[in-house]
């Protein structure tokens, strides 16, 4: 792993490194009338993805970021495969407005589809150009050449290294439509075992995160946040704090308050003193937590019908109706958000764990009143984020404070309670469903509605950066917008993948946001799959049909059937009648966004009758992410997703009252701890060589929740439709 030295971060590669980002963005329109694969459509230049130096060094570029999901390793695998190189010789540059393509956000399980696809095609085309050059130099047919480890070889033993062939690679070379990819049957790297490249450094204490950056002359800063949304700073006497040890500067702009100090502990000590000295007033009224779902459903809505199908169906003999609820949830990164920024010679450099360096740069430009070209955002790993947490806001803090102290790098890390109370939560959601069964247990009618705020308040403008709100001249966040289908936001996965010839699904978009919200892993899919898959079990029970059989009865998609059958088989669904007392089994399935990975989960829970405490004992998952590049990477994501979703499902709800957000730490927002971890979570990857990448990261968030609720029903005969399935709620339902 590279240490986070300035040289390492800012250094450039070999002779062919070209600032491609200055080229016209419409180059694609000139050269490629049809859409190029993946993110080649936004950056059609091959040099934007793969560069070969005269010494043969190969650098691959991605506009996506490593968030702990292992994308760095998978992208290197793809490039190595198509370039016929050993993975170890490839350097990968990730999201950096100074060096990489604008691939938007690293979100929505899109990295493999967008960047993986682009790199795969770009690498194959670069290799083809090099091969052609070798053929003409050696005077043989390209088909008679072979490539190993970066050397092109002729049958007679003559060979040329990639570095000797770079003259053939023009930095202006644009990707072509005709693409010869390697035959998946010949893969030696993709789909094969390759340990993650970042783990050795992370387990030995190397500087791996933005939190670990230590630039020469760097100072530490902390912001002081209002006690609740919209509160203003009424009074502050900071004179004694200005002279505290190490304090360089107290920055105040309206109600925006921060301190910069030489040492980190000095900054924290001064921040606490400022917090004690500050008198705050007012603030937005907080919603009543006890009535939040009624509140959400009573706010104005923008309705859209996202599915409306009608067909002649058998008569209904049975109609069921249910309402499912999900409270606000927290990303809860273990490392609070952090950024480092430096203003030097008119250029603001921001090292940030944002999910989108380009959108963040645009928002920062508005906040800082600087041209975007004068700002460089470099993605630097942080703690896992699972969506839009405080990353962009911390970048804004660092940049504002770097502007107040030009020349010196300023590092800002949020405190735990700041992360918990100011991060944008995942919205509270209500889902209502009604369905009818025919005499033979077929769903003949399906009516579904989901009420949700937006799931995207990412920095579209400067006003979406929270630190901008408290300043004397605050910026206004651009208004919330729904994410349209087919991906969807609150209504993501609101349309079941099942065969429902008569179905009506309405997305009730709620623009007013009682609490600050934005994107969290899975968006609305977590709740919609919880609702749909819980209800499928309720319908199966009403029809007197086994829940797995009932799903298969309504599922014709072959790949969906494969994961359902595989998970059931690996779990031993047929043999599960002999579970211990207090144990139950549950099943659930979804195809993420109905466009991404297929995932099915079968799991066993133990419910402690007296206390209501639920634990997932074991789980079997089957997943189809299309062509699998890193099989273990997929397993790791699915396993982690299942455990994280178990934590959301069993424990988590953001709490608040008139004073503000009260989930300030891990005692007031408990998450899963080791004693409650499952004994085993096995993941079966159904590999589809040659098929498109489908992404993986969010696939099990939804199915896990419903599988747990279904297993609790099986174990304790209580159907719980409100998340979380907390000990108190389960105990109350059991009635002990």
């Amino acid at each position, binding site marked *: 792993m590279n240490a986070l030295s300035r040289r390492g971060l800012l250094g450039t590669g070999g002779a062919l490194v070209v600032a491609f980002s200055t080229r016209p963005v419409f180059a694609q329109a000139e050269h490629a009338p049809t859409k190029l694969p993946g993110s080649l459509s936004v950056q059609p230049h091959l040099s934007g993805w793969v560069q070969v130096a005269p010494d043969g060094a190969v650098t691959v570029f991605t506009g996506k970021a490593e*968030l702990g999901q292992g994308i760095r390793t998978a992208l290197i695998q793809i490039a190595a495969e198509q370039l016929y190189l050993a993975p170890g010789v490839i350097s990968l540059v990730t999201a950096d407005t100074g060096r990489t393509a604008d691939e938007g956000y690293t979100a929505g399980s899109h990295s493999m589809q967008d960047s993986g696809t682009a790199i795969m095609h770009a690498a194959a085309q670069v290799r083809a150009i090099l091969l052609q050059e070798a053929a003409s130099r050696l005077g043989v047919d390209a088909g008679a050449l072979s490539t190993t480890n970066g050397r092109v070889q002729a049958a007679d033993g003559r060979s040329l290294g990639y570095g000797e062939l770079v003259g053939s690679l023009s930095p202006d070379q644009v990707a072509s439509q005709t693409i010869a990819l390697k035959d998946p049957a010949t893969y030696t790297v993709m789909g094969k075992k390759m340990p993650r490249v970042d*783990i050795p450094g992370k387990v*030995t204490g190397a500087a791996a995160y933005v939190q670990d950056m230590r630039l020469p002359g760097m100072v530490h800063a902390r912001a002081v946040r209002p006690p609740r949304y919209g509160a203003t700073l009424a009074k502050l006497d900071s004179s004694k704090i200005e002279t505290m040890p190490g304090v360089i500067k107290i920055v105040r702009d309206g109600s925006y308050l921060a301190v910069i100090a030489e040492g980190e502990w000095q900054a924290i000590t001064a921040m606490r003193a400022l917090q004690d000295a500050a008198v705050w007033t007012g603030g937005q009224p907080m919603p009543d937590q006890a009535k939040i779902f009624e509140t959400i459903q009573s706010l104005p809505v923008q309705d859209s019908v996202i599915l409306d199908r009608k067909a002649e169906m058998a008569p209904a003999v049975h109609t069921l109706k249910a309402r499912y609820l999900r409270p606000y949830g927290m990303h809860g*990164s273990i490392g609070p958000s952090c950024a480092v920024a430096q203003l030097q010679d008119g250029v603001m450099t921001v090292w940030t764990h944002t999910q989108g360096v380009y959108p963040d740069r645009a928002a920062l430009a508005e906040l800082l009143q600087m041209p975007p070209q004068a700002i460089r955002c470099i993605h630097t790993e942080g703690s896992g984020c699972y969506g839009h947490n405080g990353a962009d806001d911390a970048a804004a803090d660092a940049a504002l404070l770097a502007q107040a102290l030009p020349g010196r790098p300023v590092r800002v890390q949020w405190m735990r309670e700041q992360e918990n109370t100011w991060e944008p939560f995942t919205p509270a959601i209500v889902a209502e469903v009604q369905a009818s069964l025919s005499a033979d247990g077929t769903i003949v009618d399906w009516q579904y509605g989901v009420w949700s705020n937006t799931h995207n308040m990412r920095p579209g403008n400067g006003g979406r950066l929270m630190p901008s709100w408290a300043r004397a001249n605050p910026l206004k966040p651009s208004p919330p917008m729904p994410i349209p289908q087919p991906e969807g936001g609150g209504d993501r996965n609101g349309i079941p993948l099942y065969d429902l010839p008569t179905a009506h699904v309405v997305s009730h978009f709620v623009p007013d946001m009682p609490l600050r919200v934005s994107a969290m892993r899975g968006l609305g899919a977590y709740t919609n799959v919880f609702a749909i898959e819980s209800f499928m079990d309720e319908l199966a029970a009403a029809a007197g049909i086994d829940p797995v059989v009932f799903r298969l009865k309504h599922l014709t998609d072959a790949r969906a059937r494969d994961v359902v059958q595989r998970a059931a088989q690996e779990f031993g669904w047929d043999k599960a009648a002999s579970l211990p007392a207090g144990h139950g089994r549950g099943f659930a399935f979804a195809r993420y966004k109905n466009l991404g990975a297929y995932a099915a989960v079968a799991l066993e829970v133990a419910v402690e009758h007296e206390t209501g405490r639920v634990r997932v004992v074991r789980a079997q998952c089957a997943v189809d992410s299309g062509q699998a590049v890193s099989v273990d990477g997929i397993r790791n994501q699915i396993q982690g997703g299942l455990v994280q979703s178990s934590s959301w499902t069993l424990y988590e709800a953001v709490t608040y009252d008139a004073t503000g957000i009260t989930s300030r*730490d891990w005692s007031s927002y408990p998450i899963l701890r080791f004693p409650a971890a499952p004994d085993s979570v096995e993941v079966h990857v159904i590999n589809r060589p040659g098929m498109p990448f489908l992404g993986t990261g969010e696939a099990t968030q939804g199915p896990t929740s419903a599988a747990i609720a279904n297993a609790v029903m099986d174990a304790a005969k209580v159907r719980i439709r409100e998340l979380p399935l907390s000990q108190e709620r389960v105990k109350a339902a059991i009635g002990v």
Partner: protein
Amino acid sequence: MISLIVNGTTHQVDVDPATPLLYVLRDTLGMHGAKYGCGLGQCGACTVMLDKQAVFSCLTPVAVLEGRQIKTIEGLGTIEHPGPLQQAFIDEQAAQCGYCIAGMIMRAQALLERTSSPTEAQIRAQMQPNLCRCGTHIRILAAIRLAADTMRQAAIPGRVQEVSR
């Protein structure tokens, strides 16, 4: 000046004695392994060993550390020569974002130095104070079991072979 013994090396540090060890490790001594997570002793990201016990470095002022043995993840091995627990975490690919991992390894190290054959319940109880948000628990537990096996087989029961520094 306060004298701190970290991974067998004595350092003289000129800091406010109330400063928690975490900040001295990271900012004064340039050791990045221990992480700030909560500053409250609720997550364990900052875990280091102090005289054979796992402690929260975010809550431990350096004033009480004079003459005591502090061990951090940097003391267990290097990227070239990882210690048994570090190697086990690599072998099991037991990390996602990895932010919590240094703390996990130090808390597990304290257990394995004390108990060469821990039961599953002992491992889980030991790891209870440390949080992982990525959901890597299954792999972390597997890595600890693997390291326990490796360390037992390394002929010095219950003790780690220190990597020479």
